[in-house]
């Protein structure tokens, strides 16, 4: 177990290192100079050479790229997250601290709701294979990944405004401040994200259970006289769980991408909306840091999912199998 864990951790670190290098260097291939672009506000404002040189010194742009990268990496690691936001003039740390809980809430609610909903639905579709329950479930999950969730969001808002004269609150409230407001703000994006996220989970659950139910040991259990529900839950599910866990991890990246645009539409002050606002304002430090943080989150989740997979699947062990 420890060998595998160490191997996976080192792989994660190396991949993170690669990602940070990629993010850093792509930001540096900007055709213009960052200081010049920022000072000129995109070519509109004039500035003097002295101001430009001073800014370059302040930002350490005259040092070698490796040194700049090292400095940036260090600030990412020790919690500074890359310095100051150009747009707000605040440390990126503050922005992250403020926006992370929002995105975290959104993500956690979605994952929890998806699990609650998808696994039973997938099992239902598998057990009632090719009957109407199966078709209904497959029909419901098919568009989840094929339709633009931001359009569905707009349609929902449209429908709610016209039919119920209701629109979500504008000011964000945390869970502990005002539960009802919090619920109203988050219910729509969570439902939309759940639809997308669980579509894959349901289909994989269904396929996985279908496969598992064909196994011989299930026939044995049935011959022994166990009830169907016992068989499904105690025996089939344990083995079928592995691909489900895998797809949970794989779809997590898509989920984070979805939070980006839904936060923007529903006005939730999370990391996603922060990234978009930074991108629109060409706030390079924030874009650089946020992208790196998001990638790190996804890679970590993949690692955790992989470890869970190994622990859950009775067929795999933590033997070093390289």
């Amino acid at each position, binding site marked *: 177990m420890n060998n595998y864990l160490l191997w996976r951790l080192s792989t994660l670190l190396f991949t993170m290192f690669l990602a940070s290098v990629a993010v850093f260097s792509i930001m540096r291939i900007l055709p213009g100079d960052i200081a010049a672009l920022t000072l000129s506000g995109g070519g509109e404002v004039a500035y003097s050479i002295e101001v430009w040189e001073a800014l370059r010194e302040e930002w350490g742009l005259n040092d070698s790229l490796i040194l700049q990268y090292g400095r940036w990496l260090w600030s990412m690691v020790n919690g500074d997250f890359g310095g100051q936001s150009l747009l707000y003039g605040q440390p990126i740390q503050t922005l992250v601290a403020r926006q992370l809980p929002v995105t975290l809430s959104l993500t956690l609610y979605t994952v929890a709701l998806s699990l609650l909903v998808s696994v039973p639905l997938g099992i239902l579709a598998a057990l009632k294979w090719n009957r109407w329950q199966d078709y209904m479930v497959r029909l419901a999950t098919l568009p989840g990944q094929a339709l633009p969730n931001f359009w569905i969001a707009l349609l929902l808002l449209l429908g709610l405004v016209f039919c119920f004269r209701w629109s979500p609150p504008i000011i964000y409230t945390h869970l502990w401040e005002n539960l009802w407001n919090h619920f109203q703000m988050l219910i729509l994006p969570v439902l939309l994200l759940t639809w997308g996220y669980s579509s894959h989970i349901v289909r994989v659950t269904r396929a996985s259970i279908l496969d598992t139910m064909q196994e011989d040991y299930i026939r044995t259990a049935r011959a022994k006289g166990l009830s169907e529900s016992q068989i499904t839950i105690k025996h089939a599910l344990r083995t079928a769980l592995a691909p489900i866990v895998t797809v949970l991890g794989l779809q997590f990246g898509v989920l984070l991408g979805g939070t980006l645009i839904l936060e923007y539409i529903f006005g939730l002050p999370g990391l996603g909306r922060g*990234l978009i606002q930074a991108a629109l304002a060409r706030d390079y430090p924030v874009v650089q840091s946020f992208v790196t943080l998001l990638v790190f989150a996804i890679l970590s989740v993949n690692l955790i999912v992989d470890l869970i997979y190994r622990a859950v699947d009775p067929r795999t062990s933590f033997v070093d199998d390289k």
Partner: protein
Amino acid sequence: MKFKWLVRKKPLALVCGAMLMIILFLAIFADLLPLQNPVAHNIPSQFESPGHEFFFGTDNFGQDVFSRIIYGSRSSLYIAITSVVLGTLLGTLVGMISAYWGGWIDLVFQRVVDMLLGFPILVLAVFIVVALGPSAHAVMIAIAVAVMPQIARLSRSRALVVKEETFILAARATGASPLRIVLRHILPHTISPVLVYATGYVGTALIAESALSFLHLGVPPPDPSWGAMLYDGWIYLEAAPWLTIFPGIALSITAFSFVFLGDALRDVLDPRTRVHL
């Protein structure tokens, strides 16, 4: 006979295929059709609801939504298809080479692919557009880079299986160069699943491109684009709902058709589910 089988077993796929052909036809021959001018400002006619003259209504500049949808499909489809083709070509090559050569090439490629897979498509696209500036090329590169690792992983796993077949050994024994083996023997066996996924990815790419245009991080105006139209729809949501409804329907039908076609293609090409014809 094959057609009748398709009609019976996969009617929805045929419908999707037909829809896509119509959409592509409209996109390519838009200039020849009797459409209103999509970019001419016509303020006296702004916010007309759908009717005789303007099938889907007009927007805040008085531009006909129907013709903007058709003209808008051009850039969206062009970007989506080109980027997926690029990403697929690159991904297939990377995957096959990685599988066949093995060793440290495989290790390095796998780490790079893992890293790229950690970027959600929208995040990657936003990032690249910020770095390169909003343009069609930036969006295309971004989507291609997002699609490439997915296809690479797929083609690598297929190639790993095919690599162990006897005919590969035979080819090597008769002196075929590695390049020839990869292109002539391994490639044909990896094409089927790759094609299935690639078709689905065109739908995803379409949605991603529209999301970028919606956020004003895609192709800059005044070219009509579905995403930008949806943004206008958002602003005037209550005043002019047709601005949101119709472009969204167009986008949804197109993306969905691609995804569904990919699914159906998998059922058609999978030898286990093929009906004996």
